[in-house]
């Protein structure tokens, strides 16, 4: 059918004219008909194992579902949420989760921005930094956790050893078991593990900044800082916004790293909400209650992101 349609209007010297509108192209390729057929293989597992469970999970939050209990679960309305409101342990863990996510995201952005700016310069050893910056990305979370446990090890760890040699501390700090140091120590690991992705994204953003603008600003007498604020930053801002939002979500939802490093200890000082909900669900079997926690987490993330993105977009408009 398409061949016939295409050959009816021959133009001299131009061969077969291409279809003019996107709709004509689609019709010619028969995509209107085939799109659903092509989507089906992906759609079924997604609906059955992602969208379905998600809706099921949301509904579980309003029941008293428990693991391994034979009696049927019953609808309890908002009781889980009412209980949750008074659960000080959960809110403490929630506070820790926010501190962790905000600190890791902010430090990731600052450090990655610095590294990306350096990598964008014509420096020697740039290739080494580029390669090294990708390695944390490739490593399994569990291995990153194990590696940093070796670094933080109070007796055999390199960190205490180095501090001892520099005479900065007595060198017997037990980083991951100290009530005050455990969370900062874990945050450093989070930054180390998440920096590469942010760096790569920012570097790509930087390479889209027109060099001519930089040169023009330089000729007009703008210093390095001024060139950054007036030329680089405005061009980079959309990229920074999207990667920060994504990083925040990923960090708030992260699990494996802290599970391997401290399992939430000491005394719950690094117990992120994800770890809390995991324990509630798979140690104590409170499926309904844990689902309610998950739902609260999603709601808070959604609200925070909306506020964050809306403010930033408003700024961008002005």
């Amino acid at each position, binding site marked *: 059918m398409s061949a016939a349609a295409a050959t009816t209007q021959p133009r001299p010297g131009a061969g077969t004219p291409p279809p003019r509108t996107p709709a004509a192209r689609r019709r010619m390729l028969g995509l209107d008909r085939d799109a659903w057929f092509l989507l089906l293989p992906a759609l079924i597992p997604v609906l059955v194992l992602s969208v379905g469970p998600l809706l099921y999970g949301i509904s579980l939050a309003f029941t008293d579902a428990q693991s391994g209990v034979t009696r049927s679960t019953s609808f309890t309305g908002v009781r889980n949420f009412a209980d949750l409101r008074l659960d000080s342990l959960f809110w403490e863990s929630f506070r820790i989760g926010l501190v962790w996510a905000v600190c890791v995201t902010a430090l990731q952005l600052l450090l990655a921005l610095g590294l990306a700016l350096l990598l964008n310069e014509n420096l020697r050893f740039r290739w080494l930094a580029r390669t090294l910056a990708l390695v944390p990305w490739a490593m399994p979370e569990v291995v990153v956790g194990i590696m940093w446990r070796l*670094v933080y090890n109070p007796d055999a760890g390199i960190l205490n050893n180095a501090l001892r040699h520099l005479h900065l501390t007595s060198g017997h700090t037990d980083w991951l078991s100290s009530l005050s140091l455990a969370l900062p120590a874990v945050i450093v690991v989070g930054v180390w593990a998440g920096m590469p992705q942010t760096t790569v994204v920012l570097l790509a953003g930087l390479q889209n900044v027109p060099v001519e603008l930089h040169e023009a600003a330089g000729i007009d007498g703008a210093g390095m800082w001024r060139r950054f604020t007036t030329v680089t930053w405005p061009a980079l801002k959309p990229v920074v916004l999207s990667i920060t939002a994504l990083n925040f979500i990923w960090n708030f939802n992260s699990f494996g790293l802290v599970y391997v490093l401290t399992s939430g200890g000491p005394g719950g000082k690094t117990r992120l909400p994800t770890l809390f909900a995991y324990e509630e669900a798979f140690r104590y079997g409170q499926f309904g209650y844990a689902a309610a926690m998950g739902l609260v*987490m999603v709601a808070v993330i959604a609200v925070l992101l909306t506020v964050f993105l809306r403010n930033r977009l408003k700024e961008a408009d002005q």
Partner: protein
Amino acid sequence: MSAAVPVPAPEAAAPQPRPRPTPRQGLRRRAGRTGRTGRAMQYTALLCYLVFLAFPLLWLVSTAFKSPRELGSVDPTWLPRHPTLGNFRTALDEQPLLHAALNSLLVAGAAALVSVVVAVPAAYAMVRFKGAVSRAGTGWILVSQMFPLVLIIIPLFMVLKNLHLIDSRPGLVVVYVVWTLPFVLWMLQSYVKAVPVSLEEAAAIDGCGRLRTLRSVVLPLLAPGLVATLMFAFVTAWNEFFFALVLLKTPEKQTMSVILTHFTGAEGAADLGPLAAASLLATIPSLVFFALLQKRLVGGMLSGAVKG
């Protein structure tokens, strides 16, 4: 950053700044304008980054090659004095590491393959057929990033339990397929966008049917992208920890990530060596992958991520 991890630079002093670096790219003239002190500061900063990024890795490698006696010493050294492979042998003997690696290989391989096979037609349709379906797909890719795994795993656990797929490797494969799909779709879309529509039109004019066009025109052009996506999905599944932790209970079925955390339970300095050795072994597939595909992967991710 260096304030957080004040570690002496073990290797190579700061490279001397060059007053006028030979511009590798014609447009990098601005570099020449950065002053001598500016350059020195840049190299100092770069050195700090290198130290921060490299020192945990060096320590992991060095620990893996140390003898138990050296690991017990009060004053650990940066490099092993008598490098040994003993830790690797202990790690392989004591824990069912090879078996776990095989489990990981099977599960991650199957998941990557199914995920890509399922995603290719969908990614194609989402790129070529811009409409409500495509928008819904993109929306799902974004939303799926937002939900904490805990909220998904509880209902998934109950669903899989009814299907008797708990504590089974096929069950984990199914979960990984769904879990890697957003990434895979996202990557594949950027590769599909690079295939010129005019080629497909030419094939249609020559009388190719829908499937024939896909098979003989689109797929061959997608091949490099398919390989990259396949490997990316494989590494993602190989590195995954949370689902494997929750879904697999029998030690014989557990994957590499889960088996590794069994090591961490034991404290004691002597166990650190085998732990480091096993961790290194678990990282090999990902490192190979990244070494092979560094440029392509970054390019593919970025064309999807930044330019949208």
